[in-house]
């Protein structure tokens, strides 16, 4: 049987820039699921845009070459008819919030939007959408606003809106990072059905682990071309050093109560002690209070009751900008706070605020930019960088504060294998240097690799504690499954 998709791409370039992809060809058999692995800024998203017919058109740029889908040939280089293309190729991208159109009132309408735009009547749309919502586990949310859902649920909504016109080819560019249990199951189910029906899918990611188990074969994107995937050297097995002598207690929370609305505490009597030089991971299901705990420790959220001390300072009273001398923080959405005009300025921002002398600001900024691998990008605008690099800019800007404690909220999201390895190496170096690390992460492989000690949070209090080795040896729990030691009942 011939190929379902045959892409021969001469070149793709954005205005005024060198081509991102050149002489690239990609061929998919009916029923095939291909994974494309590539480092950050290798052009994965550009390739996805080309397949989805977005360049030129919605994305300014120039493309040349041709694309064959199902025996018909389209020339690249001029905008495609979207009416036709919705049935040929569907594309979902990372960051679900950006892929909610804002044009629909409910989840059902959002998912049905492409059909509505293809001219189907309300009854026909409803019939098509109903079953899909069920299989995505979104049935109970059909009449809710998609903007009220969790990020995992939003990613399922986006998947639904991509699948609903039944495209022959599904392209997912890092569109599965937030998929939880039902979402991943629905994706696998679709991929299985696509195989049976002779359709195809392309999955792109920077993390090998995210593609494993989903794809039939793996390609490697580098230098603007596709190559057979090399065996990437695995990161060396975690090698927990013999436990250092625990230092004095640097951070202490006692019977901490906190929340955002009266009568609904998120932290309910939490107590925790962290010693100097320790790398402590805080894990637990969504809504357990992990990020809230960090906010309290950083002085950003005043506790209702209880005591929280950081190096003897009362974090419940000190303003956050004073605590910035003690705790550096990498927020969950680091790109939010960057404002340039250059990467250098963003990293120098913190030490300047703390009144560090200019020479020392220059030294620290240069040193930490090199340490995270951004030395040659110091003059770029933060918006010019990929999401993974932006996270490292934010990390460097937290490190430049020179604090003895570092709190990192989901530091691995959006990183490719290379940046992930870089992050792990950097954190190991910081541990060596005696810094205290607080890690909030859903990525148990990362936790097992970096942390010395793991505490489990559920229902706003600690429900268990473990050495990191035990976490690593355990299979990652499914989303929503309570961690060991958590109380029974709804969380």
């Amino acid at each position, binding site marked *: 049987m011939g190929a379902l998709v045959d892409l021969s791409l001469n070149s793709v370039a954005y205005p005024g820039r060198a081509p991102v992809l050149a002489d690239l060809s990609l061929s998919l058999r009916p029923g095939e699921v291909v994974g494309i692995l590539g480092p950050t800024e290798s052009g994965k998203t550009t390739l996805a845009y080309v397949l989805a017919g977005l360049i030129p058109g919605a994305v300014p740029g120039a493309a040349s070459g041709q694309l064959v889908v199902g025996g018909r040939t389209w020339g690249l280089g001029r905008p495609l008819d979207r009416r036709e293309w919705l049935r040929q190729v569907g594309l979902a991208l990372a960051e679900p919030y*950006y892929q909610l159109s804002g044009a629909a009132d409910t989840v059902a309408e959002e998912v049905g939007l492409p059909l509505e735009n293809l001219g189907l009547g309300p009854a026909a749309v409803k019939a098509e959408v109903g079953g899909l919502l069920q299989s995505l586990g979104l049935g109970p949310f059909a009449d809710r606003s998609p903007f009220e859902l969790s990020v995992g649920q939003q990613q399922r909504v986006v998947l639904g809106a991509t699948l609903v016109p039944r495209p022959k080819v599904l392209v997912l560019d890092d569109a599965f990072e937030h998929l939880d249990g039902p979402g991943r199951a629905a994706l696998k189910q679709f991929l299985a059905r696509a195989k049976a029906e002779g359709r195809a899918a392309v999955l792109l990611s920077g993390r090998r682990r995210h593609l494993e188990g989903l794809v039939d074969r793996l390609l490697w994107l580098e230098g603007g071309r596709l190559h057979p995937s090399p065996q990437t050297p695995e990161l060396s097995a975690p090698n927990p050093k013999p436990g250092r002598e625990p230092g004095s207690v640097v951070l202490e929370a006692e019977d901490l109560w906190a929340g955002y609305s009266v009568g609904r505490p998120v932290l309910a009597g939490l107590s925790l002690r962290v010693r100097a030089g320790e790398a402590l991971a805080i894990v637990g299901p969504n809504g357990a209070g992990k990020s809230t705990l960090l906010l309290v420790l950083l002085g950003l959220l005043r506790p209702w009751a209880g005591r929280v001390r950081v190096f003897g300072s009362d974090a419940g009273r000190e303003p956050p*900008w004073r605590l910035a001398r003690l705790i550096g923080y990498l927020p969950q959405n680091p790109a939010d706070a960057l*404002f340039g005009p250059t990467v250098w300025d963003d990293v120098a921002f913190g030490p300047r605020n703390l009144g560090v002398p200019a020479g020392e600001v220059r030294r620290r900024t240069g040193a930490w930019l090199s340490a995270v691998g951004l030395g040659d990008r110091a003059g770029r605008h933060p918006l010019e960088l990929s999401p993974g690099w932006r996270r490292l800019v934010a990390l460097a800007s937290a490190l430049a504060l020179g604090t003895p404690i570092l709190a990192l909220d989901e530091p691995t999201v959006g990183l490719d294998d290379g940046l992930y390895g870089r992050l792990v190496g950097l954190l190991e170096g910081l541990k060596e240097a005696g810094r205290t690390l607080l890690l909030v992460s859903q990525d148990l492989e990362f936790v097992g690799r970096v942390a010395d000690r793991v505490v489990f949070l559920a229902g706003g209090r600690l429900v268990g504690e473990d050495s990191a080795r035990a976490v690593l040896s355990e299979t990652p729990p499914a989303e929503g499954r309570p961690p060991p030691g958590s109380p029974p009942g709804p969380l």
Partner: protein
Amino acid sequence: MSAFASLKPATWVGIAAGLFMAAFSSDEPAVGGGLLAAELALAAASGRLKAFLAILLFAVLGPVSVSLFVVHGLFHPGAAGVAVGPLWVRPEGLSFAARTIVRLAVISGAVLLATLGVPPGRILRDLVDRGVPPALAYGLVAAVRFVPETRARAHRIIAAQQTRGLALNGNPIRRIRALGALVRPLLLSALAEAEARSVTLELRGFWVRPRRALAETQTERLIRWGAVLGGALVLVMGRLVFR
């Protein structure tokens, strides 16, 4: 009742436009009072009276009324005054304040009639089917949805910059300097968001959406244009004829 509840968004916009114009036709309290009564009746007929009153009283008139009575009751320019205790109260100013409150209630009520409780997506469809440029209709409706997330983002930025040592207290000069570090990320995120969202709109086929025939009764069209023309007529009469 149900007849009013099922009116199309555009019809409510027509009614609101008519009332809005009529609000400026006269300074007579009777005219304002009559218009306000009409709005209350319409709100009741479409089953929205409670919410209508609540917003009008607490969100709109509450804060402004106090200011109006104080500013005009005590300082209305050129008005004669009488001593009430230590204060010099001007009756003419009080009546000016009352007239202004009624007018504000009428124009705010008109806007509320067009917007209160209408799902934004319904407004979008209605506008696009009437030939309003989709980008325009989309901008209006989508912005409403993005406001909560933008506010949340503003709070995240405020939090993140403080943890990078940015002090938010102190004298005004220092706070104005902090302003840039908080507003610039907000604007840059809007650009990143705009870039991603234009891809999303394309992927959902938003620009190829066909215009649907409007299933609209003759009566509804009559109400809409009647209200607009009626409002314009009242304005012209009030300002030019019965001056």
